[in-house]
């Protein structure tokens, strides 16, 4: 009897292989699914990405460089994009901060509707947006005669490009900031105000430091979208080469002229921009998460003390 008891005890003490965990998939399922997912990503993302650069550099580095800077119209499109996108980003940053402050910090009637309205550009076709701007500011448009009288050009000119870009990209920063500010909460801001902080001090000493990474990411993503905007800009620009062609429009024009190497050269610059955006995003997300955790830990300690 004692013998068997000892046997049982010894057996229980021996390391035994763990039974397969009930919520884990069998290895063959796991391997198949991982393989399929990698295949999907390769076909959909990696191969196209590689293709852009292979096509762009197909004629060698020298020809690539020539395609970019040798063509004055292409060069101008790069300058124009570098002017339009930052202007739109600045306007949208101010809007994003205002919208996030109103929506994440206060309760008011129509708050849900306002949040939904901010998403509108994600679903409205950019072409429709461009058309409406044309109908508003174009020669035949509502303000057309008045604008002509005062010699102000909006459509087929820089302001129109900025407006179209602004519309398409304005949700990006607000969408990034609203959930972040809701997650952070308003305790610190309320404390600062009760300690006598003025509005400007409140913003740049309390709010801005806590949202800076999220804001930066929003700005970078908004910039990427702004530089790449096609549909709305296509309609309002009038595609005047060397005047109102931005980089994406230049890609289309070179493509229509069967100048594929030139088209791919411009495309490779924009693809590079997308890669940089992704890299910054990954880094910043990691930082924001760490700071939020730190914040939680500190406030938990404060609660205990």
């Amino acid at each position, binding site marked *: 009897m004692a013998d068997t008891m000892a046997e049982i005890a010894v057996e229980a003490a021996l390391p035994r292989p763990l039974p397969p965990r009930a919520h884990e998939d069998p290895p063959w399922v796991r391997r198949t699914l991982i393989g399929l997912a990698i295949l999907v990503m390769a076909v959909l993302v990696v191969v196209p990405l590689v293709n852009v650069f292979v096509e762009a550099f197909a004629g060698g580095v020298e020809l690539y460089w020539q395609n970019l800077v040798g063509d004055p119209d292409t060069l101008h499109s790069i300058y124009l994009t570098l002017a339009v996108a930052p202007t739109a980003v600045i306007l949208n940053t101010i809007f994003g901060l205002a919208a996030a402050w109103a929506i994440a910090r206060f309760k008011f009637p129509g708050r849900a509707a306002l949040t939904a309205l901010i998403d509108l550009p994600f679903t409205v076709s950019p072409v429709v947006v461009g058309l409406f701007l044309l109908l508003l500011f174009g020669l035949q448009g509502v303000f057309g005669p008045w604008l002509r009288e005062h010699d102000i050009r909006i459509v087929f000119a820089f302001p129109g490009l900025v407006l179209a870009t602004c*519309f398409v990209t304005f949700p990006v920063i607000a969408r990034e900031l609203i959930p972040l500010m809701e997650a952070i909460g308003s305790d610190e801001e309320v404390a600062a105000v009760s300690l006598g902080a003025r509005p400007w001090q409140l913003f740049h000493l309390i709010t801005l430091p806590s949202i800076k990474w999220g804001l930066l990411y929003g700005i970078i993503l908004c910039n990427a979208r702004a530089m790449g905007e096609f549909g709305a800009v296509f309609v309002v620009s009038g595609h005047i080469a060397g005047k109102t062609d931005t980089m994406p429009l230049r890609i289309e024009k070179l493509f229509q002229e069967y100048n594929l190497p030139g088209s791919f050269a411009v495309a490779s610059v924009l693809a590079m921009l997308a890669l940089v955006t992704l890299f910054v995003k990954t880094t910043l997300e990691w930082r924001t998460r760490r700071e939020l955790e730190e914040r939680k830990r500190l406030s938990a300690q404060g609660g205990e003390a």
Partner: protein
Amino acid sequence: MNDVNRRILPGFGLSLGYTMLYLNFMIAVPMAAGFWKASSLSLDDFTQAAFSDRALAAYWLTLWTSFVSAIVNVVFGGLVAWVLVRYEFPFKKLFDSLVDFPFALPTAVAGLVFGSLLVEGGWYGRFLVPLGIEGAYSRLGIVIVLVFIGFPFVVRTLQPVLESLERDVEEAAACLGANRFATFMRVLLPSITPAVITGFALAFARSLGEYGSVVFISGNMPYKTEIAPVLVVNRLEEFAYAEAAAIACVLLSISFVTLLAINLLERWSARHHG
């Protein structure tokens, strides 16, 4: 807490006022101009412009290519989200950040690249064209670029939901004798259904308005491969502004209905699974 905020924190009137002003300027005013232009047509002319055979073919093409690509994205996106949440494998972080690539890449670049991949002699085309699969300048091409464009939406909607699922439930199902397949079908699938629907709707809505990538790959043949936004541009290039506005109004209505449906779905899923 939020009610207290309004008495304590500054800037409520200023920030809300500015937000409303900006949105008005960006959305309400241009939209009014669009409807004003469309309303300059008589009802008959409007119907003729907005519901001509060519326009109807374009709406139909836009709707079904968006629908098919969103379905494909549910499968692909579901697979990728599942693998990212549940399994470990080398370069997973890199894999994860590449999911957002279609969102960061300008649509014109996407159209250009998929066009060059799918033509005869392109990296994909040289295998597909001999099989009789014409990717470039076809409806298939439209579906392919729309899958690319909508891909991140499904993955990013599903990922947090899959992460929040409790593993205990699956263990309980296994203890009660369910195999993995039954657990997936009867325990996991019902709880991720709302997220799947939301992801589908987002990808669908995004595809409805897509222009930049499709214009490179579809060939834009009336009645065959001409999607609705391309038709709007073609009408514009004929200087038929009112006709273009009529089609745009129909497109806009479709967008509104989709947006409304997404919001109702989100509310519904929050109530049932919140």
